[in-house]
């Protein structure tokens, strides 16, 4: 259904857009377990994936879903699952496995108000820290966070690309509001979408060291069943992929995992800003809150306040540097978020006392409105 | 609070609880019940009621009570709905 000027303009729900983007990004496998407010992603992919020869399966729970996703990814399939808070908690053990064994996959968490069952259809932004720290042990992770349906498209594609490029699980955090609302999206032609595939070995099987990384820290990955017989384990392992308990190896392995993300940090950090240049008060926000922050900042400017805003589209790795820079040149940072204060901890850390950091939280299942932002800007 | 005010009515329908699903109406072996304009159940032919309690047992909304039913709201017995209708 092309819109005017021949562009493919569509009115899509956030969840629907995520499903469409996944397919365009090359996703051919989805395993999931229904949960509000993410279910539409599964529903749409149950219809669309087999249309492109891909596979959809509804597993017995979320643990099995992420496991099946990792399994499928081992065969070379770009794989995804989608869930919400309770399911995200259940997936944590295997997210750690994927992170540690460096199996690409995308995990969508359309957040709802927690904890526990909480308010299943109300929005919250309270899984931010869990996205980083939900599984046991040190582990690298990447998390992206759209605020509009077009951003859902963009960041879903990027999630797959980053996951493949760095062999790391990428978490797409979404707000219930974004997942469930419909907006205008321009779907690019498939040939205009940049697609990155996981690095493949360029050596014959006998020479293949599945965990020997190049300078970017990312080892090439051979799909199962293509002649490269390798071993995958959640135990500490060396370049061969086989387990070892040697202390120096453990140190090397863990540090490489962190370094591969660190060295790519710049290329995977996405932000968007509004009137930052001369701002004295800066609002930092993500997701749906960033929209209100943007409007709030404009309204504040109208009232003569030098306000600005920074939207974080990449939450992990956290852009400490960018925020540290801003902290060095503004008077105040307001962190607006729909939780009891999660982002603010990271912002405070980044600001390192260089400016005042104040929080504005809302935890009643309602999004923060622009007027609240304005009021907060005026108050501080 | 019920659609039956007079004491001789054998079946009480709690109007605020009834969702008008029509199950009681369809299952009553004696066609005692009918749908009101709002779809909710009313007792149309009280005199035909045999107090079989099928309506009470089958109402998903606990909206029907058979007055002086045999089993005081804890109906037991053999036979499925078909039996009761037969």
């Amino acid at each position, binding site marked *: 259904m092309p819109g005017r000027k021949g562009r493919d303009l569509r009115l899509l729900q956030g969840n629907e857009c995520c499903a469409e983007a996944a397919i365009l990004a090359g996703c051919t496998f989805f395993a999931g*377990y*229904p*949960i*509000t407010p993410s*279910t539409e992603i*599964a*529903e749409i992919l*149950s*219809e669309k994936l*087999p249309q492109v020869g891909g596979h*959809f399966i*509804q597993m*017995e*729970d*979320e643990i099995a879903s992420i496991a099946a996703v990792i399994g499928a990814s081992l065969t070379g399939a770009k794989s995804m699952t989608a869930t919400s808070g*309770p399911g995200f908690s259940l997936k944590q053990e295997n997210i750690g496995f994927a992170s540690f064994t460096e199996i690409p996959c995308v995990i969508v968490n359309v957040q709802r108000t927690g904890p*526990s*069952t909480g308010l299943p259809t109300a929005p919250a932004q309270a899984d931010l820290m869990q996205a980083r720290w939900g599984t046991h042990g040190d582990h690298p992770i990447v998390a992206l966070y759209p605020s509009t349906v077009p951003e859902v498209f963009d960041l879903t594609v990027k999630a797959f690309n980053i996951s493949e490029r760095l062999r790391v699980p990428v978490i797409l955090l979404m707000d219930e509001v974004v997942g469930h609302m419909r907006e205008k999206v321009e779907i690019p032609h498939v040939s205009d979408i940049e697609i990155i595939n996981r690095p493949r070995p360029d050596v014959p099987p006998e020479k293949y060291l599945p965990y020997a990384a190049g300078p970017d820290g990312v080892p090439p990955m051979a799909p199962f069943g293509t002649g490269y017989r390798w071993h995958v384990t959640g135990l500490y392992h060396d370049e061969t992929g086989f387990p070892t308990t040697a202390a120096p190896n453990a140190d090397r392995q863990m540090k490489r995992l962190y370094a591969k993300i660190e060295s790519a940090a710049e290329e995977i950090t996405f932000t968007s800003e509004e009137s930052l240049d001369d701002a004295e008060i800066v609002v930092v926000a993500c997701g749906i809150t960033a929209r209100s922050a943007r409007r709030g900042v404009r309204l504040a400017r109208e009232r003569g306040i030098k306000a600005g805003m920074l939207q974080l589209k990449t939450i992990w790795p956290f852009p400490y540097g960018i925020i540290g820079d801003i902290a060095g040149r503004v008077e105040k940072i307001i962190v607006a978020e729909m939780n009891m204060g999660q982002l603010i901890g990271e912002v405070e850390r980044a600001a390192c006392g260089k400016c005042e950091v104040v929080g504005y939280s809302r935890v009643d299942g309602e999004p923060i409105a622009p007027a609240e932002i304005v009021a907060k800007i005026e108050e501080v | 609070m019920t659609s039956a005010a007079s004491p001789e009515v054998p079946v009480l329908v709690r109007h*605020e*609880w009834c*969702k*008008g*699903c*029509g*199950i009681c109406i*369809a*299952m009553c072996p004696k066609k005692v019940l009918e749908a009101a304009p709002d779809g909710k159940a009313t007792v149309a032919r009280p005199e035909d009621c045999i107090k079989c309690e099928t309506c009470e*047992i*089958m*109402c*998903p*909304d*606990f*909206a029907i*009570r058979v007055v002086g039913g045999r*089993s*005081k*709201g*804890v*109906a*037991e*017995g*053999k*036979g*499925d*709905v*078909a039996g*009761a209708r037969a």
Partner: protein
Amino acid sequence: MAVPVDNYLRNQFMPHMWCPGCGHGIVLGAVLRAIGRLDLPKDEVCIVSGIGCASRAPGYLDFNTVHTTHGRALAFATGIKLARPDLHVIVLTGDGDASAIGGNHLIHAARRNMGITTVMFNNSIYGMTNGQYSPMTPKGRYASTAPYGNVERNFDMCELVKAAGGNYVARATTAHARQLSNYVEHAIQTQGFAFVEAVTQCPTYFGRRNKMGTPVDMIEWFRKNSVNAAAAAKLGPEELDGKIVVGEFYRGDAPEYTQVYEEVIKRAKEAAAR
């Protein structure tokens, strides 16, 4: 003395949140009538559920009630029963809750023969999340995640629980509300793990997707497509295809877990005294 059903409801929350014609209310009524006939003191009854439409039941019931996490009702119930063996612990659960995410807890509770009565409200669908297929959705049926028809077979949950070690296993539908209530009564009387599958209608999702008509039509469908266990024994697999077999399938007499554990406590105390 039998206690009427109303006495067990938290009337202030009625009408309940289930859709018009949803069979869950019929099943719940059957459970409450069984409790009423057994005249269980309210304080000694504990109702545990997971998450789902069915699992919202405890909120409406005037007992000790817990609405836990999805699939975990039996695990919570196991802790309750073991810590307080004198309580009547009854788990009300959906087919998704019990057979999908909660399948493991179900077979283990059965294996341990925990003294818990489990009533599975089987509407063959995930109602609460708007109609995805469940492990109890028959093959070929449609659901929001089975747009081309479900490719998976459903469990025969009664067989499974029996194989896992349960002491009582039965199945009825909302078209058999009286039997259903009797089965629940027998289940509560069972020493050890008891399981009743209550086949029920979700007109909103399962019914609508599969063009099954009104709630009344669905109940009629159950009635017409049910075979009792005795009759079923004489039929071949083809004849049974698509049929719902109802009846009491198994009664065992393995000792109940918490009673066996009392033995452990005795032995342990003796050992400690030595």
